[in-house]
């Protein structure tokens, strides 16, 4: 019988000193995300979805 895959979350507390410091350094030296770019993508997607909805609603109304 196949064994189901189990997924575990790594524990991020009580990190050993050297590993913890290295992880802290990596996180704190990572640049913040480009929120403007991500927001622009989200807005463009939202616009596309709303336009598709309006089109669908208009088709629904004209079919009545």
């Amino acid at each position, binding site marked *: 019988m196949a064994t189901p895959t189990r997924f575990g979350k790594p524990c991020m507390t009580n990190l*050993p000193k050297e590993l913890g410091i290295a992880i802290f350094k*990596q996180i704190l030296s990572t640049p913040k995300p480009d929120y403007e770019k991500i927001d622009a993508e989200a807005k463009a997607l939202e616009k596309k979805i709303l336009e598709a909805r309006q089109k669908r609603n208009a088709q629904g109304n004209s079919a009545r």
Partner: protein
Amino acid sequence: MVRDNSSSELVGYFSIKAGLISLNEHEEIVVDSITGKETRKTVFDTLPGVELANFAVNDSYIKKYPENKGVGLIIFRSFIMPIIQEAAKSIGIKILYLFALPYQDLISRYKSYGFSRLDDPYEDQLHSRLKPSYDESCKFMYQRL
């Protein structure tokens, strides 16, 4: 839960919780900024954050309205981030993090939302700390706030 405002159908859901990354207690030499005196102290370093504990988009909704594919990004930027940014004003959170299932398409999507992964050696060490090797490890991903 996020619902479609015209049909009330479930679009997706998420949950967030306060969390942190912390180091074991360890001793460090601390220098008094006024007197310059050095003392050995036990310190406990933490990096406070918020965990995006659950985040999912309703498959059935996307199957019914395929033009809404990608709506997860809108949920993330328009619903999740404003809550976190508001919380960041009053509590000292520095990062947003999550544990992604180890599927490449999911990890790529979170990368497009601005999340990063740790370097491979750190990911491997994190997994080997507490988990048996036959378990698959979720991937720690983070972004600075």
